[in-house]
């Protein structure tokens, strides 16, 4: 890792940067006010106004991001950093936090993804939510989410990132439980937020730990640039490794919560209770990628800790495989996609864990496109089938929903990892990096998972769009979605086809992949090279595995009547029940916690001993008061006697005071 780069960066100030999160924030505020103003009316706030503001905001952010991107590109490779300070947030002793934003190559990528895909999804939602009474409320939340996500990626310090982190968590809760009148949907929102919270706890511990560490070494800081300098200045010994390990693991726990890694993945599938655009934006393209973004941002920590990195690799690979295994059994189209997201997130973390951060980020980038496309397409299907989500009730829809079909086909091919679509390049890069850096076990798991991925994705595709329709009445009423919904699909499909070429590896193109090169000044990856023939061989192998998966799926589900699933088999049951993880958590964590709480309340808080002792003090007081009351005899003589006694005592007191001070008599 070359350190002189870190010292040399001089940031340029840019107030344009503030506009990027500002537009969606304003959109949220205005739409929020409109929602409140029209809360008690029949139809709610005027649709045109809400739409204009809600869709306009992310679009404006996107345009600003593009401008900023070119500005950033205009700066020399070593000077690509633009910051903007807004105000001092907390200044207390050694803690000096500011509201600062930072644009460097990494965050530039993120804001482009967030604003572009965000804009498309906002547009799509205009159509999707057009019949919903909570139209303006939806867009308020969606804009607010966009704002939070932008704060997350643009934050210049860990606390700023954490603000965005929490913000997206809250918005996720609000949006998942959007139809909160349905209690199950509301609970799904709870589940997401609570699982996130568990992760956030780890995140916070990590932040505190880093603060104390930097404080002890002169100069407390939580700023990214300064933290990387701090870690660069540490000696290469065991203590440093320990520090990095602790920090890395704690922060990773946060990433596990946000990015749904095992065991904190349980919320993502249930999060499908929210409207489909929500799933597309939050649970495919943006929020869930925050974890990988954070790990990439803090790469200098993970570079120093093999233990933390191994942990990431292990959990990432495990998650990838586990989620894929569950996905092959799911009937709900959205759940298939949810588990596929979890699985792909595992891939991204493996990429980051082996040290190939740009590979992980590239997969984030490509995945955003085709996963958003898949979810929006699924939404289109659900919309057409009148809210039916069970793929076993669909079939043959390709004739009825041509645009949806072709775009989803592209996305499915991409996610299966077939060249030359985007998914191939990004997934393959991760596989290659894992192998060539020596993590052969992880490579094997991911390769196997790739095959399973291809299988279950095409299973979903075939069951939905091919064969004879299994619910004829719904099929007859199905129709293609309006342009507001299909336009984003098309745009995303174009993206899926094109963006892959940003990451073409050296062996194929002869030049360094553009994406990795762009991110290099930030991530400072060590380049690992291997034999070209090996690389070609592995590429071929992964294509073969993917093709096998597709073939099996086609064989089973491609025909007019799909094969039935082995629902009676024991292993099927385990998979379909998500390996019983939810039940396990319920039994091992939730029940004992409830038991402890009730015990505590019943025996300590509402304890009779405590209430009794409260009564005791009251009774003691009353007793003394009762005794004192007997002095009030009503007999003036007694009062006079008491006065005389008091007088005598006073006299004694004063005389002893004076005779002590002055001369005695």
């Amino acid at each position, binding site marked *: 890792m070359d350190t002189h780069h870190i010292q040399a960066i001089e940031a340029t100030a840019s107030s344009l940067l503030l506009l990027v999160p500002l537009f969606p924030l304003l959109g949220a505020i205005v739409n929020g006010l409109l929602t409140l103003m029209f809360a008690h009316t029949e139809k709610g706030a005027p649709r045109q106004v809400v739409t204009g503001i809600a869709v306009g905001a992310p679009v404006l952010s996107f345009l600003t991001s593009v401008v900023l991107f070119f500005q950033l590109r205009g700066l020399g490779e070593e000077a690509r950093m633009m910051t903007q300070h807004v105000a001092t947030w907390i200044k207390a002793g050694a803690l000096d936090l500011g509201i600062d934003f930072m644009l460097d190559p990494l965050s530039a990528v993120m804001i482009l993804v967030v604003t572009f895909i965000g804009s498309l999804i906002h547009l799509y939602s205009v159509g999707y939510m057009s019949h919903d009474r909570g139209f303006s409320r939806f867009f308020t939340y969606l804009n607010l989410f966009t704002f939070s996500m932008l704060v997350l990626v643009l934050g210049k310090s860990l606390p700023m990132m954490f603000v965005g982190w929490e913000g997206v968590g809250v918005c996720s809760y609000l949006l998942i439980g959007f139809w909160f009148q349905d209690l199950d949907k509301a609970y799904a929102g709870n589940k997401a937020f609570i699982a996130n919270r568990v992760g956030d706890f780890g995140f916070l511990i990590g932040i505190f730990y880093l603060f104390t560490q930097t404080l002890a070494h002169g100069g407390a800081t939580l700023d990214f640039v300064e933290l990387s300098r701090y870690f660069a200045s540490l000696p290469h010994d065991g203590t440093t490794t320990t520090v990095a390990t602790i920090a890395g693991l704690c922060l990773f726990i946060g990433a596990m919560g946000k990015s749904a890694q095992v065991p904190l993945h349980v919320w993502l599938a249930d999060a499908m209770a929210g409207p489909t655009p929500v799933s597309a934006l939050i649970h495919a393209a943006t929020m869930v990628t925050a974890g990988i973004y954070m790990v990439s941002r803090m790469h200098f920590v993970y570079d120093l800790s093999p233990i933390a990195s191994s942990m990431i690799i292990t959990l990432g690979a495990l998650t990838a495989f586990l989620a894929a295994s569950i996905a092959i059994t799911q009937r709900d189209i959205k759940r298939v996609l949810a588990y596929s997201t979890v699985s792909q997130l595992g891939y991204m973390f493996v990429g980051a864990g082996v040290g190939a951060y740009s590979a992980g980020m590239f997969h984030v980038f490509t995945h955003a496109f085709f996963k958003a496309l898949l979810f929006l397409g699924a939404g289109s299907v659900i919309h057409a089938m009148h809210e039916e989500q069970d793929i076993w009730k669909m079939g043959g829809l390709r004739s009825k929903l041509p645009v949806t079909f072709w775009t989803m086909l592209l996305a499915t091919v991409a996610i299966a990892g077939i060249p030359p679509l985007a998914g191939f390049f990004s997934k393959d890069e991760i596989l290659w990096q894992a192998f060539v850096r020596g993590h052969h076990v992880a490579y094997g798991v991911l390769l196997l998972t790739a095959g399973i991925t291809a299988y279950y994705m095409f299973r979903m595709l075939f069951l939905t769009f091919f064969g004879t329709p299994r619910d004829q009445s719904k099929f007859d009423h199905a129709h293609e979605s309006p342009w507001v919904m299909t336009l984003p699909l098309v745009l995303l499909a174009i993206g899926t086809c094109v963006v892959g070429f940003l990451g073409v590896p050296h062996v194929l193109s002869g030049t360094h992949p553009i994406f990795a090169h762009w991110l290099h000044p930030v991530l400072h990856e060590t380049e690992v090279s291997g034999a070209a023939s090996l690389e070609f061989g592995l590429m071929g192998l992964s294509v073969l595995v993917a093709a096998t998966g597709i073939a099996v799926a086609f064989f089973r589900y491609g025909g007019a009547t799909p094969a039935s699933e082995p629902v009676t088999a024991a292993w099927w049951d385990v998979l379909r029940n998500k390996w019983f993880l939810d039940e396990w958590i319920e039994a091992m964590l939730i029940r004992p916690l409830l038991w402890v709480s009730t015990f505590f309340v019943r025996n300590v808080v509402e304890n009779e001993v405590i209430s009794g002792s409260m009564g005791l003090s009251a009774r003691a007081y009353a007793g003394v008061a009762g005794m004192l*009351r007997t002095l*009030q*005899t*009503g*007999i*003036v*003589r007694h009062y*006079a*006697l008491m006065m*005389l006694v008091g007088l005598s005592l006073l006299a004694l007191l004063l005389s002893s005071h004076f005779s002590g001070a002055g001369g005695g008599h």
Partner: protein
Amino acid sequence: MHLTLHYFLIASVLLFAIGAAGVVGRKNLFIVFMSIELMLNAVNLSFVAFARALNQLDGHIFVFLVMAVAAAEAAIGLAIVILLFKNKESLNVDDFSLLKR
């Protein structure tokens, strides 16, 4: 040995204490009243003694006034005693205890 101020003052204090003891310790209305008079007189004695010691007649004036006040007080006080007796048929101070809790 000659008479000094001390003698008179000590006598005054003793008389005052006796009067106070009577006010506090006795239940008969009349005795209480008489004890009050004792206290007043004790104070008078100390006034006169100081007047002599300081060679000023102000003490005498004060005693004069105290006597006038005592006379007025005796008149009204005894009238009240009579009324109290008429009311309750009792001369016991403790019987007039409407201040009781």
